[in-house]
């Protein structure tokens, strides 16, 4: 089995993985989850059966690491934290406000405030340019569900904008 040097994968996707994780866990925690993602990928890499769809494989790892991280953070959170924040994906919060400045950053903040699945689907679609099939693979959902999550996310972002 011939696999390209891992550095190729890093060069091709480092910025997109980082952006995806900023959208998933916020800018403050993104660096840690970014490192966890790449180390997990590096650990598993030599056992890969083939070099096809490395991107989907990589973002599946990133997505799982982000979920683990958000869950661990929820467990650490004090009981007085609003539970709605966790299910409704409000992980952006303070972290995002710290960097939000221009219109682009406002959009980031709006994306961060989307419910988890919509946020992930939108991030994959517009940061990583994923096809719906790839979004489905990464999120371990059906393709119609992937499409629906992107659609619902966009709808909510448009509503935010016109409010």
């Amino acid at each position: 089995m011939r696999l390209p040097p891992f550095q190729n994968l890093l060069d091709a996707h480092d910025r997109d993985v980082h952006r995806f994780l900023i959208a998933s866990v916020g800018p403050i925690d993104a660096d840690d989850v970014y490192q966890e993602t790449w180390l997990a990928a590096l650990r598993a890499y030599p056992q890969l059966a083939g070099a096809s769809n490395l991107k989907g494989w990589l973002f599946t790892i990133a997505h799982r690491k982000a979920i683990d991280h958000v869950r661990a953070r929820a467990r650490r959170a004090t009981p007085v934290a609003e539970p709605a924040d966790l299910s409704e994906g409000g992980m952006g919060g303070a972290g995002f406000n710290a960097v939000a400045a221009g219109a682009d950053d406002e959009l980031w903040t709006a994306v961060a405030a989307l419910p988890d699945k919509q946020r992930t689907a939108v991030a994959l679609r517009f940061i990583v340019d994923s096809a719906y099939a790839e979004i489905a693979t990464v999120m371990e959902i059906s393709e119609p569900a992937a499409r629906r999550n992107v659609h619902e996310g966009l709808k909510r972002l448009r509503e935010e904008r016109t409010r």
Partner: protein
Amino acid sequence: MSEINLNHHTGEGGDEMERALRAALRSGAGDSSPPPIVDAAAAAGLLDVAYARLDSPVGTLVLASTPLGLARLAYIDEGQEEAVMEDIATRLSPRMLSAPGRLDKPRRELDEYFTGRRRSFDLSLDLSLLSDFTRRVLRATAAIPYGEVATYKAVAGAAGSPRGFRAAGNALGSNPLPIVLPCHRVLHSGGGLGGYTGGLARKRTLLAIERPPMSD
């Protein structure tokens, strides 16, 4: 959040929002550079191969080391870089990251060699993937002093296989660490240059570095 400066596009449908998302999500908060992972990878024991490039009088070189030591020095010919990298990944390990800082010592010693300030290398080498015979031949080669030459036959003899000069030639041809293990110092008994992994022009250059033409 109520005001985004895209409000004037309201009502123009999804494409506008999708374009804005594409633009925004690739800049703004996501514009900070990702942190390097190489040190964490090494600390976790996951950096099987660290590599770096080096410009030299014999062209661009790639140096690759494992935790045991320098394992490969490859000549990069025009357009061959990807193939060389893939070969290193296949032979050593695909867990391979660019890590120039981890190759500072061999890069410095090679620089000194190319400028005539170093006659021998003081580096740990990883020869674990080579056959016993190849290792013996390369050790015999490493014993040829700087500025001198030996024949394939002499090297085969020193490696314990006096009749195996052809096999010795093949072993030298597969030398994973040219320059450091100086197979360029091995010539035909008639005085002909013989062959060289990186081509004869490089062999001549290396010999000329070690034996500058007399000035008178």
